[in-house]
């Protein structure tokens, strides 16, 4: 039944917070090594979808299959064990630990290999972090913390990376750095699911765009088939006037 090419299959997923339903039957299939961007207006449920994939919401129904195995309702740790890594929206680092220690915590579940080397790699990637490595993460500027969180995600050695708005608070230069790293991961065979409001950057980097609105997928196509004017319409009305929906 499970398609072997499909790495992640989301089947009629319903999820929310407590009694509150946010996702009303989301269907989405992501192939191995694909770079998908998830777009949508504010409050569409994008973050909720990523959280659900990482086991941090109340699961209400439907299936999430990862390499053919149903992982719906597992705890976040188990998700990490399956190679799923998640960068949430907003601040998510250890404010009272140094940058160095934060990076160490990022590799918490990984007990083998060259952790020092990997840390040096992310320091090369974001030199600003190396300069401040012994400072408390909570004292960094907003953008610096955002970079730190991206670096932490890289250190988790994901097979699939779920990132929620990584460009928020970053200077144009830093955004380029981050997207380059995402592209590099993608080239290295990892799967990426990116949520972005910076639609231009996202569509440049990704192969496929999925639009979510009011807890449902309303669009799913390669990025080429979608212009920014279309996007505007999709966000506003949920429809693209010019043609029928391929989703």
């Amino acid at each position, binding site marked *: 039944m499970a398609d072997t090419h499909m790495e992640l299959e989301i089947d009629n997923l319903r999820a929310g917070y407590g009694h509150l339903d946010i996702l009303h039957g989301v269907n989405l299939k992501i192939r191995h090594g694909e770079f998908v961007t998830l777009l949508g207006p*504010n*409050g569409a449920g994008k*973050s909720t979808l990523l959280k659900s994939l990482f086991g941090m919401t109340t699961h209400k129904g439907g299936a999430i299959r990862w390499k053919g195995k149903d992982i719906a309702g597992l705890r976040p740790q188990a998700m990490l064990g399956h190679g799923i890594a998640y960068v949430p929206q907003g601040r998510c680092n250890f404010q009272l630990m140094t940058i160095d220690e934060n990076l160490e915590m990022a590799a918490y579940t990984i007990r083998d290999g060259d952790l020092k080397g990997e840390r040096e790699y992310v320091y090369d990637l974001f030199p600003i972090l190396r300069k401040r490595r012994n400072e408390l993460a909570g004292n960094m500027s907003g*953008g610096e913390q955002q*970079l730190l969180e991206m670096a932490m995600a890289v250190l988790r050695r994901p097979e699939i990376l779920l990132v929620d708005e990584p460009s928020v608070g970053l*200077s*144009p230069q830093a955004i380029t750095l981050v997207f380059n790293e995402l592209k590099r991961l993608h080239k290295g065979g990892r799967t990426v699911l990116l949520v972005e409001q910076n639609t231009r950057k996202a569509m440049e980097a990704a192969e496929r765009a999925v639009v979510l609105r009011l807890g449902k997928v309303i669009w799913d196509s390669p990025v080429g088939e979608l212009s920014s004017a279309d*996007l*505007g319409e999709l966000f506003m009305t949920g429809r693209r006037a010019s043609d029928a929906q391929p989703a």
Partner: protein
Amino acid sequence: MQPDVMLRIEGLRKNYGAVAALQGVDIDVRRGEVMGLIGPNGSGKSTLFDCCTGLQKSDAGRVLLKGVDITTWPMNRIAREGRFLRSFQKTVVFPTLDSEENLVLAGQMSRFPSVLSTFWVGPAAQRRVKALRERARELIEVSGLSRVAHLPAGNMSGGQQKLLQFASMLMPEPELILLDEPLAGINPILIEKVIQCIEHANRVLGVTFVVIEHNTDVLMNLSHRVVVLHQGTKLADDTPEAVVRNPEVVEAYLGG
């Protein structure tokens, strides 16, 4: 001193241990303008806001609001008496209050003469609150939050909270607003609306704005003047067009 200076920042310095976040910054914000503030990550933009509004004590320098030295004023006095508000880069709302209450609260302090008068629930107070509620509902409508207005703000999505935070800046109708990345995480359509709001407030109500924003396309369109910070010093202070062409700024911030 010229009469049209709304906020004057003189030689502001702030060190965190070895980190010099601000190394003597001088900026004049003119009455009625929208000033953009850009700079690479960690260049001291947010720290500048913090020092102007009393959240952080500066090590040296002065902050003058309409000619009055407010360097040592506490935050609440700056907001209330100075009619000078700021938003935070990290999205913060009152999580257990719904949108309307969030907004009413934001507008409330400027409407009551004293702290003690807020304890009294007489008809006058009720009228004031009613007016505030009406204004709040308008703003909720404008910022597209009506669908989630009944939720405690802490249960709204990241972008919705950011919008609410922006709306609460407009509630008390201040004279000067500092916005720290108001557009981060807002979807393109709502960005338009936020811009419209800023422009409306600026043109019609005469509110002065200082906006930190990394979305340079939008910012350059919006602002009359742009100041660039780099490593705690002022790198440029010019019209948007000139700033974009300034090679130093391109090198330090915009990227090749």
